[in-house]
């Protein structure tokens, strides 16, 4: 290599070195270390001892592992489609030409910039069974059938739906991406559809949706990965739920999500080796499902180019 070229490479590496060093130290090394620890008996405080596949073998027979996995799957199955519908619906509405559009767009985006801890504390009060805003507005509705609204976070059957509701509050980010996608749909397609006498619904189904399908796909995948990794909201709300008993996953393990179970295994029970194995299994599950979604998308997603 000529000396000038070499200098150029070195300068390039020099300028990217903060990123390269950061990635290697704070991401690559921990990831590889966790792979090693997953084959070890490791308590964090002592040296890891190699035990081969034992951690992985034990996972299959661990009842709480399956409970956590099921909780996470149920949450994702509810939160992801509802999130797509809510954010796409909002984006469609905000794509209409109405007065005060920028104000509406700002208002609906606003919740996404509230820190998750702050919004969790807020939702804790909204979900309060007796004095909460949600039940105050639902009570007259339930009273029609002589019933009462659920205790949300205190009720194992309603704690997960409560977290799903809360997640819908933060759809602002994906809404903005949909909005950008919608604005990219060529006008003339709508015009020719209109000339052919196509109604609103079919226009959405045959023009809009295919044209923004890459955006839907992107948001779906990001939403899915985010939903599988739900932690902070559940961590705060479950510790405060049930009268604040501080038990993670409360009430009765209904909000014990995968990451929460992983956290308490690693940092409360000091079984980092086992928790590392859980993390790798989870990584494979998410990667596998994302790959499957990708395979489906190949037939359904249309890239205009």
């Amino acid at each position, binding site marked *: 290599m000529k000396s*000038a070229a070499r*200098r*150029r490479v070195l*300068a390039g590496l*020099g*300028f990217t070195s903060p990123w390269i060093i950061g990635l290697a130290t704070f991401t690559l090394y921990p990831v590889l270390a966790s792979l090693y620890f997953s084959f070890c*008996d490791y*308590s*964090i*405080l*002592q*040296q890891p*001892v190699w*035990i081969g596949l034992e951690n992985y073998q034990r996972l299959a027979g661990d*009842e*709480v592992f399956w409970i956590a996995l099921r909780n996470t799957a149920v949450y994702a199955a509810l939160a992801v489609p509802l999130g797509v519908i809510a954010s796409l619906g909002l984006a469609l509405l905000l794509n209409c030409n109405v007065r005060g559009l920028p104000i509406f767009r700002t208002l609906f985006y606003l919740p996404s910039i509230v820190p998750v801890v702050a919004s969790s504390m807020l939702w804790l009060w909204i979900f*309060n*069974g*007796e*004095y909460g805003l949600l039940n105050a507005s639902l009570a007259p509705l339930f009273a029609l059938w002589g019933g*009462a609204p659920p*205790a*949300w976070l*205190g*009720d*194992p059957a309603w704690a997960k739906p409560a977290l799903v509701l809360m997640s819908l509050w933060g759809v602002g980010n994906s809404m903005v991406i949909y909005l950008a996608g919608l604005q990219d749909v060529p006008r003339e397609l709508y015009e020719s559809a209109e000339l052919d006498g196509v109604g609103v619904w079919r226009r959405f189904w045959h023009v809009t949706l295919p044209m923004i399908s890459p955006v839907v796909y992107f948001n779906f995948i990001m939403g899915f990965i985010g939903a599988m990794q739900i932690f902070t909201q559940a961590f705060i709300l479950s510790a*405060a739920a*049930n*009268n*604040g*008993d*501080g*038990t*993670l*996953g*409360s*009430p*009765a*393990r209904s909000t014990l999500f995968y990451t929460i179970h992983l956290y*308490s295994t690693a*940092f*409360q*029970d*000091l079984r980092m080796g086992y928790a590392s194995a859980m993390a790798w299994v989870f990584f494979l599950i998410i990667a596998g499902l994302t790959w499957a979604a990708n395979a489906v998308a190949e037939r359904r997603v249309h890239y205009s180019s």
Partner: protein
Amino acid sequence: MPPGDFSSRIPLAIRRVGLVAALVLSGLAVSCRPAESDGRIQLSYWEKWTGAEAAAMQATVDAFNASQDRIRVNLVTTSQVDRKLLVATAGGDPPDVAGLWLASVASFADRGALLPLDDFMRADGVEPYVWLERYTPVYATMGQHGGRTFGLPTTGTAVALHWNKALFREVGLDPERPPRTLAELEEFSRRLTKRDPATGAITQMGFLPQEPPWFLWAQPLWFGGHYFDESGEIAIASDPQSVAGYEWLREQSREYGLADVQRFMSGFGPFASSQSPFFSGKVAMVFQGVWLNNFARQYAPALEYGVAPWPTVTGDPFALTEADMVVIPRGTKHPEASWEFVQYLASNNPLARTRAELQGIEIVCYLQEKTSPLRDWSPFFTEHHPHPLIAFFRELESSPGAVHAPASGVWQEYSRELATASERIRLLEATPERALGQVQARMTTAWSLHRTSLERQRRAADAENSSNEPTIQP
């Protein structure tokens, strides 16, 4: 100059500025460390306390720093102190002294993260059991695990029955006569429970086992139950008293109606607020600790309450005690100095007659309004203690029924499993037999894995030691 050569395009002056900035930043980083200019040994002490409770510990640390000129303790308020101590110890840079919760001491000790304090006691020429005689018996054993001492209590707390006298008076109960057996507690509770005549919704309850919710694991203790059997194996499902305790819990849900109780509970505010059910008069009797007085003064100054031993099914004396434990993490650079400070926290001035004469543990316990775990209290501490009922708590802790949570490396997990089982039973999701059977199965596995893991660690350490030893040739 070649077009892509960025480095030589940057003017020399800017590069110099960058260099200077880097030097200044690294200088700042160095100067952030505690100053070692006063020539004393600097100890870092991580504690969980915040607010007034942190100020109480700071006053104790200040008194220690003023009492000698060799060591300076720097108190650092640390949230989630167990988690941070874990990471710092694993990273080889732990604080010199730390304040842990009782529940973490055994698991940290099992993993070799804490220095056994017995070695220090013996080095001072005192046998550990003699050294520990300064404490009320229940506190003397609290920091012990596997025959060694890993932590010492810094503040004493006992949990007792607190009852609301005004609510007793309202329903015609003698406000000075608390329930003495569990049967009486149930009877009083029925009389103290009120419902809205129109809707039937509960508006007040005599007693609710899950209020406060911190002792969901303690249910068996009210019934004389055990968590481990004599041979040290998990015994929750096979222990008839423990099972009875959880059956009682289920009966509570059935008697008052689960849905009604759930709705009633869902309106409770957090403990440190005037919406806390005991402070707002929604629950008349609670299983609460000596600390309640601090919070009552702040959130319900008009509350008139009494304290009594917790009624048990057998009528035997019973008191659950807890303490905040001070430990010396393995890896400290100044073990001797740390021990000196810990000794200060384990001492008082038995002759103190004024606030200024208070020393060591009595400063923090006086300011936090808790009992001193020491047997002997100074005249000032006894007579001028800010908690009006402190003498009752002192007596309770010295009573033969005083117990503390078991010291076990799996206790964190065990108590969490019990709390979950207690929720499932209370919510009528599972029968006591089924829920406790699952705890039993899960904890039996966890307990045997824990022991296997400790054995593995021992073997690995032995192998390392023997390979390091020089082989001696004959």
